[in-house]
């Protein structure tokens, strides 16, 4: 995009719709390979606790500590839970293959979802602040999430999952620089509390 307005002289000539840059024409970068195993593990891990409980109930019933009827039910429950966990894992793997992102000169694009798909485009000029987050499991896989906040409440933030640590750091730095550049144009229209948050990240 070359249409960025020079400082102070804002013009806004009419542009034919078909002349505009198309976000669909951008080649998206798939998320890192490590994201797929991480997503599968994370999806299955959530089912470990109920699986463990079912196993425990089964062995307790076998040992005569619980009514025998539970012992009869337990294998079915266990099987059902295993099936759900497996389906979740498969979906997570498929989802990981769909996830992709790209940076353009003026915005960030992120695509996700298997059945219900979503492409989100966030102009840099609208990002309020950026942060990187990684949980213990993500750190094991060397992954980091990048969160971009815009105005508009709960719908106003974009989480880019599946970046490696170094890429996430670089993208965050890049975005922060872009935001700062924007602030030079128009300083300090931010409340003190937001200012403090931004300061922490800068």
């Amino acid at each position, binding site marked *: 995009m070359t249409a960025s307005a020079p400082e102070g002289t804002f013009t806004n000539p009419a542009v034919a*719709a078909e002349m505009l840059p198309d*976000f669909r024409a951008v080649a998206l970068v798939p998320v890192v390979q490590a994201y797929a195993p991480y997503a599968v593990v994370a999806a299955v891990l959530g089912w470990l606790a109920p699986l463990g409980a079912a196993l425990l109930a089964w062995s307790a019933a076998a040992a005569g500590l619980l009514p025998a009827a539970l012992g009869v039910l337990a294998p079915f429950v266990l099987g059902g839970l295993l099936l759900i966990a497996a389906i979740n894992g498969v979906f997570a793997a498929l989802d990981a293959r769909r996830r992709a992102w790209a940076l353009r000169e003026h915005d960030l694009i992120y695509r996700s979802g298997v059945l219900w798909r979503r492409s989100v485009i966030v*102009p840099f000029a609208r990002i309020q602040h950026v942060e990187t987050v990684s949980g213990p499991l993500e750190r094991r896989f060397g992954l980091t999430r990048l969160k971009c906040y815009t105005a508009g409440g709960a719908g106003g933030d974009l989480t880019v999952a599946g970046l490696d640590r170094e890429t996430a750091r670089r993208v965050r730095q890049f975005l922060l620089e872009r935001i700062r550049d924007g602030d030079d144009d128009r300083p300090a229209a931010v*409340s003190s509390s937001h200012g403090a948050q931004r300061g922490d990240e800068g």
Partner: protein
Amino acid sequence: MGRSAVTRADPGAGAWQRLSPVALVFLIVRALQKFIRENLVVFLGAGASVAFVERLGMRELLLGASALFLIIVVTTAIYHRRFRFRVEEDAVRVRRGVLEHKELRIRFSRVQNVQLGEPVYFRPFGLVQFSLETPGAAEREVELPGIPRRLAEEIRDRIVGARAAVGADNEVADELAADEAGRMEQGADAVTPVLLHAPGVGRLFVHGLSSNQVWVVAGVVVYALDLVFRQTADSLAMTQLVAWLETQFSAGWSAVLPLLAGVLAALLAAGGAAALLRFHPYRLHDYGQRLVGSGGVLERREQTLRRDKLTGVVLQQSPVGRLLGCWVLAGLQTRSDGRGNEVSQRSFLVPGLRAADRLLVGRLYPGAVVPAAFEPIHIRYRSWWLGRGFLVVAGVLGALLVTLGREHAAILPLTVLLVLLPPLVWLRWRQWGWWLDRTVIWVRRGLFGQRLEAFELARVQQVQLRSSPYLRRHGLVTLVLVLPQGLVQLPFMAEERAAALANQALFAAETALRHRV
């Protein structure tokens, strides 16, 4: 409580001030209102109050209520005693809290609207309730109940004309903001106000008739009556009333219809009167950089909206409003909970508009003209909802018929719903529409009523394209535009159209001067 605290001669060093003693009354009234509103619903909802009153005697109940009342009064008194505020050069600072102490500092340049309220009992003392909102807050961020009117007006004027009082940095910011709004007035006070809208008593009454609140109130009244009825079912007066009603009903429709009509008329009249009380004599003034709406019989209210902080407008019509040709206009602003595009009692409302008054949109939001036609969404919207709707309703109906037989109470309404589904879906589809008028986009939706939302494409914060397997199969997507006030959705858009609109929105947002909220 001197004015000297905010004069320029003493910049940034205003003394900490307290609220007026009369403010305590206001705070207690509001605390009680809040308590009742929040807890009554819980009590009523659970039906607990019935069980409660039966188990406990009236005396215990009264004792409990007075204890509660005392607790509320004491906490409010502590809050009132500890409350301090200070007006600085470019900000207002507030210290408050009972258990948790909170100190806020709100920069004037961040404020997007200011409200002055004057309840009846404040009038003899020359006091007002001052409140302001910033983009970061979901609720009113600062409230100063019970400060002298002159002080409140001075703070208000400093906020809307912030440029004059603040340092160089903010001057740049505010000038840019003014550029964006296409306004370059020098200082807010120099502008003579232009009267934009002054609905008469009749229009305000009609506004009350068409507001949905009547039906909410009616629902609450019916519920409360039901509870009272259960409590007093065996008292003499109630037995007589029931006997009288029974004779009326046994007389057939000729007696019941006037009764129903009377109740309906009373409800509508109450709604109209409530709107009159709230708004009369309503005046909307244009001061260039700010818009001011004022009115109210018992509580005089004045809402001041900074024009450069206006992120969109809504024109809305309830089903009754559509019959009566009555519109309401609301100004939208940034909200951190993303629900800023819901029109509520708190919004900047312009009541009592006729169809012709819709031109006002252009005065409120320069460049906005109500479009004559809208581009519809894809016709698959109808088949999708019809298909899914039929499946669900017919499924439930079938299951009921098989398991419970024909006598079940839900059979009739479900059958009616099944028959009415096609026209309902058609109406809903027909209301959906959008129109791009150079830089301003309009989105219309509704069923019996309608709602038109307009905003500048450049205000878009984020563009999303969502699709389900069904939508993809037919080359459709749902376009979601994230705005400072919340989400705006356009479902069942042809993918090419949606992508073109998305590209346009991104172009507008990326080439506009940067305006953060």
